[in-house]
């Protein structure tokens, strides 16, 4: 049991490589989810004819479990669309789809929380709808939803553990590889769990601090 050094410390390069892959896939998914969520949200709110499509997509991405989406994107999409080509891409695409569903709703709540009077003040000053949105509404929305975005990032990190199943070489994959090599799971799996817990904890502590700053500076309650 007391093989911490042999099991964990000596394998730290493998674990670090895995951690890097995990963070890569999470950051890319996060960026894609923000874009996707924003697009879905704006289409739902402002593009009348496409509203049902947007709503259907949002509900679909939110209601389907991430594991199912992962397998679906990885095994079915290449047959249907010829893409994605690699499991890494399938990984971040699935993670992004899932989160964009939630973020679309988050953005919508944020947009609806900006008092209508502010937009009207912009319009009275001669701004176009688009300009009013870009300069008045959007900045406030981004500030308000920032803590929720950080929270969604922790969700992505936690879900990313499943990409190991489609053989993406993330932290989970590497640690399971080590377990299969050395056949002794205790130290390595506990260490892996601890790493994930610490990373998620750190990010959510950041999110809480961010929410505090926003509340104090701008008087905005986090949504």
């Amino acid at each position, binding site marked *: 049991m007391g093989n911490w050094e042999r099991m964990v410390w000596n394998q730290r390069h493998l674990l670090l490589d895995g951690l890097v892959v995990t963070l890569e896939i999470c950051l890319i998914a996060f960026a894609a989810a923000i874009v996707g969520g924003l697009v879905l949200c704006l289409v739902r709110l402002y593009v009348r004819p496409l509203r049902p499509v947007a709503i259907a997509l949002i509900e679909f991405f939110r209601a*389907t*479990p991430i594991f199912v989406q992962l*397998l679906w994107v990885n095994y079915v999409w290449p047959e*249907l669309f010829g893409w994605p080509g690699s499991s890494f891409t399938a990984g971040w695409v699935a993670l992004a789809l899932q989160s964009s569903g939630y973020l679309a709703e988050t953005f919508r709540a944020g947009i609806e929380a900006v008092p209508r009077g502010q937009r009207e003040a912009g319009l009275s000053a001669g701004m176009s709808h688009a300009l009013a949105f870009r300069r008045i509404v959007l900045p406030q929305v981004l500030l308000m939803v920032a803590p929720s975005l950080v929270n969604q990032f922790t969700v992505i990190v936690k879900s990313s553990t499943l990409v190991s199943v489609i053989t993406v070489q993330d932290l989970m994959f590497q640690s399971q590889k080590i377990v299969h090599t050395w056949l002794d*799971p205790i130290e390595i799996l506990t260490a892996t769990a601890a790493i994930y*817990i610490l990373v998620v904890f750190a990010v*959510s502590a950041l999110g809480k601090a961010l929410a505090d700053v926003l509340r104090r500076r701008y008087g905005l309650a986090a949504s």
Partner: protein
Amino acid sequence: MSGALAEALNPAVFWEYRAILFKGLAFNFYVFACAAAAALALGLGAALLRVNRWRPLRWAGTLHVEIFRNAPDYVMVVWVHFVLPLLLGLAIGRRLEFPPFLSAVIALGLVYSGYFAETFRAGIQSIPLGQIEAGRACGMPERLILWRIILPQVVRRMLPEAVNQFVSLFKATTIVSLIAVPDLMYQVSMVTQQEMRPLPLYTGAALTYFAIIFLASSLVRAAAERWRQKVYA
């Protein structure tokens, strides 16, 4: 591509194996029910620790919440299934192995107890102190105040949030196939190995889960809203 699309949306294979597949789905519900019960009980316990007068108890509650709330579901499932039996086995001097169903329930129950604990805690702390003092002024013991005044209102206030977490828990049960619990995804992968036709099966699984979860969460949302509005809470 249209050939593949037709293939993907062809329900024939899914329909052919529906008996086994639905048996698998039943397993998802079974795991969900047990894990939900565990998560609620542990979550309430942890929340009560967090609001206790004693600082060591508060720390214990916070530790529980922070560990399990921040742990990824899959990591927890793997750890409970492969590591926990070994640790317990060392403690009692025998070789232990957990049946996959038990590991799944324990792991998901622990993780979601973290979420429920936070929900309960926020609810408990949102009850105005005055109502508690009114109870004390009548000579009510703290336990009575908790069960008759605090918790009934906490349940009403936190219902929407709790429903969201139940939905997440159900979605999380899909990963138990990875430790060989025979749920829907497990059966899908078994059938795929036999039939070598993943498209309709994976698509079918996705649509099945979507239908169930979407229906369930819409229904419960509507019902919870009506129940909440019966009483000002």
